[in-house]
């Protein structure tokens, strides 16, 4: 075993680094949770796309480079190390696209993937409902069959915690197409435009006051058959089969954390009394955690070739690990900033640490709470008895 990158991988890294160095904006873009910032981030997505860096792991036919998982890890390392903007297209690239690759039609892929990669279509996810948060199978929003306009579905219901929905173009989610069925049966995976008649989007502000998500009220919103992914009634399987996409590495890539740990080390060198071992040990732990996640990513990428070595249920374990690391790392950053500075939300360069902390706080909640992830690890990986 080794950690040596091939010449091709080194070339790939050099290419990404060179491009990013030349193109990453000098000043951070405005927050993507504002109209202005959303537009700026959309432009950045287009720039990435034009140079082929938007979706490196996708096939070339859809705007990617056909990069391997290792190359994708390399790209992510370089991307975050360069301080490049957050990805406003993340829902489309990391959640929707894997489902289209696995369950979509060729027509859908050709129609949807390129504008998604280019930032032309920015996607909101529309999973949760007021009564279906952690318990996603309890969802009630329904799609009724219609033969209007060549056949399709009429969506009605109430989605919430829909990230990006305040400014996005379209959304995807699960709807109950068979009212006779319960829980995870009789659901279908559909896409719909957020500006269609019958759609009302009510932005919801997160802790920092920015509309990072929204409620979506749907009143008989028409969706043509071509915007159903997979078989009607099989939506749960389609959604879940790609939830642990790339063993969950894609949800938050190791590169994000190695870059953050490096920034933390920098802040520590700049700010801390070098003899203050109490804070130093937390900086060391952040570095150790980020490095562990990075090496686990390399192991997962290597495991594709050598499948039996890949550990199962990595997605749940990864989620628990990075979400807790992320909070610890940013708490340490805030403590390094010290009284006053640590709580300032705007107006200082250092307020990025508070933004990062706010963002990190959502980690143990979204995409399946850490409680649910621990249940999964305990029951499915360790084989402990089911039931809580």
């Amino acid at each position, binding site marked *: 075993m080794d950690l040596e990158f091939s010449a091709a991988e080194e070339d790939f890294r050099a290419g990404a680094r060179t491009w990013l160095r030349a193109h990453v904006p000098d000043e951070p873009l405005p927050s993507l949770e504002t109209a202005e910032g959303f537009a700026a981030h959309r432009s950045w997505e287009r720039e990435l796309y034009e140079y082929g860096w938007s979706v490196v792991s996708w096939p070339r036919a859809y705007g990617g480079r056909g990069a391997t998982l290792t190359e994708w890890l390399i790209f992510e390392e370089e991307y975050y190390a360069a301080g490049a903007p957050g990805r406003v297209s993340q829902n489309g690239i990391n959640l929707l696209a894997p489902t289209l690759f696995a369950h979509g039609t060729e027509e859908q892929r050709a129609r949807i993937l390129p504008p998604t990669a280019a930032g032309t279509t920015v996607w909101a996810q529309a999973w949760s409902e007021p009564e279906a948060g952690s318990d996603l199978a309890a969802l009630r929003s329904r799609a009724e069959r219609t033969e209007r306009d060549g056949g399709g579905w009429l969506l009605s219901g109430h989605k919430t915690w829909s990230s990006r929905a305040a400014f996005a173009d379209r959304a995807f989610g699960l709807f109950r197409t068979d009212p006779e069925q319960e829980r995870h049966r009789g659901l279908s995976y559909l896409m719909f435009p957020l500006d269609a008649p019958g759609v009302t989007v009510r932005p919801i502000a997160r802790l920092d006051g920015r509309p990072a998500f929204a409620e979506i009220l749907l009143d008989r919103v028409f969706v043509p058959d071509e915007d159903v992914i997979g078989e009607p009634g099989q939506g749960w399987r389609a959604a879940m089969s790609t939830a642990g996409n790339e063993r969950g590495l894609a949800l938050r890539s190791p590169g994000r954390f190695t870059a953050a740990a490096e920034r933390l080390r920098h802040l520590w060198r700049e700010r801390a009394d070098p003899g203050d071992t109490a804070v130093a040990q937390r900086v060391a732990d952040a570095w150790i955690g980020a490095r562990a996640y990075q090496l686990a990513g390399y192991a997962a990428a290597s495991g594709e070739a050598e499948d039996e070595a890949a550990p199962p249920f990595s997605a749940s374990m990864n989620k628990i690990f990075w979400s807790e690391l992320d909070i610890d790392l940013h708490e340490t950053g805030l*403590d390094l900033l010290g009284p006053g500075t640590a709580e300032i939300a705007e107006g200082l360069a250092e307020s990025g640490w508070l933004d990062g902390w706010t963002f990190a706080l959502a980690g143990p909640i979204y995409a399946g709470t850490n409680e649910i992830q621990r249940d999964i690890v305990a029951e499915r990986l360790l084989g402990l008895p089911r039931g809580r």
Partner: protein
Amino acid sequence: MRFVPDREHRGYAATVRRLLADAGPHEAARAWAAGDQRPGRALWRSLADTGLPALAVPEEQGGLGWYPPELASAFVETGRAGVPGPLVETVALAAGLHPSTPWPARLLTGEHLATVTDPATATDRASAAGPGAETRPGVGYAVDAHVADLTFVLVAGGLTTAAAVGTPLRSVDPGRHLVRCVPGEAVSADPRRIRALATLLTAAQLLGAGEALLEGSVAYAGQRRQFGRPVGSFQAVKHQLASVAVALKFARPLLYGGALAVRGDAAADPRDLPAAKAACSRAAHLAARTALQVHGALGYTDEYDLTLLLRKARALQTAWGTLAACRAAVLTGGPLPG
């Protein structure tokens, strides 16, 4: 020895709690955050009418006496309710400004709000470029100086008037702004008393915020259903909330111990003050993290009132004594976090 609040003390705390529960403190906090201080000021005046700031000032100076334990209990309630404004600083100044100065009288009536820089914010971090970063004594942040009637700066060994520099900066707590201040004229005051009382009352607010976060989380967990049952029936949720309850329970005696130390009791241990700030900070932090986890996405929204406390807890954690400074003070004998 009688280390429990007596009937009168508890009665006063209950009065403050009722007053605040009826007064819509969350609306006042949101108005304050939006730039309208009127409801918050009205709230403070009604608290002052109960004699709250006067509990920090001896009778011969127009107050009701020197009652740090009672003040601590009252500030637990302001923390629980999330009352906006520089109340901690106002009361600390009422206690610490020399009676010969012209300001205390108007602080006692609730007419004026005052603020003061936390000396731990005095390192000029914006220009810091290494461990030997330049420290400008007396330069630091004062909470809400842009709307306070009076602002002071704590400098080495004393207090001065203040001049604000720069624009007010928004805090993680939306009802709180930080304003950089530079020292002006020296003022006759007891800076140790100001710092000690500010530390105590900040600890009290943290405890109150923590208790409210626990109560809100328990109520939500009992009512919110997922997987066909209340989320509060899941053992993992129960145990998290039980841990919060334990942390809060054992922070409160330290708060009272710290209050007795601030009062100057010979039998009190001065280390209880930094210990109280450390314990209240940690308990409130655990309560906030747990509240967020129990509420799920709802606890991550601006509009849900409980998140006002969650954000306030983060801000107060470093105010008037960081965890590191408090631990160090415990080991060196207290009372003031460095």
